[in-house]
């Protein structure tokens, strides 16, 4: 970035014409890419607002002749097999509860790992790191049996709780807590505050941004989680949206209006979050390397 500013400061740069050409080329590429990224999403939206007879008409209508709510009303009103509204509620509950659970458990553990000395700390730490490298599928079969033994099969608890055991939230927050200056805590300790008070009154208020980032990312990841819910939730009324969309597709096959309406419903909450918290999400992801 800085070196570019330097470029600009030199009006007699012999490459100036080249620079302009490069800028034009860059914009052309960027705008073409924007079309590539936006068009499919618009197609989903536009298809969801057409009567189904128009969805496969060519040349394609990017803007529906008239807005039709056929798709949305079909999935929101019908069917014991595809209760999309219920899936939406389930997803909302699961993702919110999951994010909250991660925030509480990860922040406490991260604080202990960042600031306290205790027997077994290194072992915990190494164990948490080591298990990050085991592919999730390895935990599948045993976790299915464990979840089953709790009576959680086919319930939202199965998608809320076990995924919160991943170590990524702990790492993310530990990294931040370590970067906080110790002086504040030490002053409070001298004033006779205990660890819990310090944690709630000093550490957490200083950590609003990373806590918000983590909550957002955990919400997104849980909202989008697909593999585990596909196999752990069976009954139509227990599903979350992602496995629900797969069901929707197999039940409605070529009723694209209905299928795309389901896609839009699953996209809207995360796209709204993304619009408002784009910076947090992108920076959170790029700092932590979090992958969904």
């Amino acid at each position, binding site marked *: 970035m800085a070196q570019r500013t330097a470029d600009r400061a030199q009006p007699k740069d012999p490459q100036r014409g080249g620079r302009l050409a490069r800028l034009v080329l860059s914009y052309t590429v*960027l705008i073409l890419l924007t079309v590539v990224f936006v068009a499919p999403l618009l197609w989903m939206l536009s298809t969801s607002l057409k009567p189904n007879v128009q969805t496969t008409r060519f040349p394609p209508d990017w803007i529906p002749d008239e807005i039709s709510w056929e798709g949305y009303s079909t999935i929101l009103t019908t069917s014991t097999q595809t209760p999309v509204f219920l899936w939406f509620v389930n997803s909302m509950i699961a993702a919110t509860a999951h994010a909250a659970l991660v925030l509480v458990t990860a922040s406490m553990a991260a604080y202990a790992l960042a600031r306290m000395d*205790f027997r077994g700390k290194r072992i915990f730490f190494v164990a948490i790191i080591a298990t990050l490298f085991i592919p999730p599928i390895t935990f599948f079969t045993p976790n299915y049996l464990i979840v089953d033994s709790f009576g959680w099969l086919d319930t939202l608890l199965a998608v809320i709780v076990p995924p919160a055991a991943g170590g990524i939230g702990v790492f993310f927050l530990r990294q931040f807590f370590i970067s906080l200056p110790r002086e504040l805590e030490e002053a409070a300790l001298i004033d006779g505050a205990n660890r819990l008070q310090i944690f709630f009154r000093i550490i957490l208020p200083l950590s609003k941004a990373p806590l918000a980032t983590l909550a957002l990312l955990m919400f997104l990841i849980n909202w989008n989680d697909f593999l585990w819910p596909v196999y752990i939730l069976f009954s139509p009324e227990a599903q979350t949206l992602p496995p629900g969309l797969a069901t929707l597709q197999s039940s409605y096959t070529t009723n*694209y209006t209905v299928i795309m309406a389901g896609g839009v419903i699953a996209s809207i909450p995360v796209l709204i979050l993304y619009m408002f918290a784009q910076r947090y999400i992108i920076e959170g992801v790029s700092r932590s390397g979090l992958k969904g």
Partner: protein
Amino acid sequence: MATQGVERTGVQPPVARSAGGGRKPTDAGTFTPYLFMAPYLVLFVVFVLVPAVFGIWISLHNWDYLLPGKPWVGLENYLDLFTPNSANSTPFWNSMEATAKFTLFSVPPLVVIPLLVALILNQSFRGRNFFRAVYFAPYVLGVAVIGILWRFILDPNNGLLNYYLGALGLPDSIPWTTSLPWGWVALVGPTVWWTMGFNAVIYLTGLQDVDPALYDAAKVDGANRWQRFRHVTVPGLRPVFLFVVTTTILASANVFGQSYIITQGAPGNETRVAIWYIAQEGLRSFNMGSAAAMSYVLALALALVSLANFALLRYKED
């Protein structure tokens, strides 16, 4: 901070020592740290540590969820996988092959294209944050949304893609989702579209972390644009590159949703990937012992790939 500590040394020894990291709150020997660790540790033990060991135990049994008896079979589940033409080995290795192919086809574009995009975005011009946000956007959607959307777009009869290919005078009846090699395009293309923004953002962070002074120095030395890229950007980006390659390989090797929704394994089971087959075997057919064994074989394969990749890229550095 450090100077403050030094200045205070004479006046307030205890505080000064704390600034130097000497006086730490004495949690050692108390119960407090364990209280803080406890909620997470319960989760970690129950859903990570226990399953990691329990999985091995399961893999040593003929563990059918629906049957009362779960006889010990030792390494049989593993040996079966390495016995040609046993019930499990053929479909398992076919699915491993599908995963390997998907990884092989998807990693190069996912490593190269985002780098080019990041290099473009790393210039100073109006709207760069807007473009960054647009390219990253698909990543916040789930694989289920991406899957149903692209299955529609790639539909051989009703899809947009074939229509526009036809409009350009190209073949307009390509069976993207039902036949090879098109099936791989149908899996890789949407995956690149979906996750490219993630890698681009990582690269971009890496590019911005390269010390600008190095570019200035190179300029003073008369290095041209390409030379600056070659000798400043490339070495500066190496750790980020290693990260991107590693995480992309792992993400691609864990592919599931695209195959499950877009190609649905077609044609035949040619694009049914390993994760899908293992999950199906364990949690639908309830052959949990063999599914567990397969998951460890997959984990081992991935570990080897990661190590090889790490060694390779590290080695180049020296």
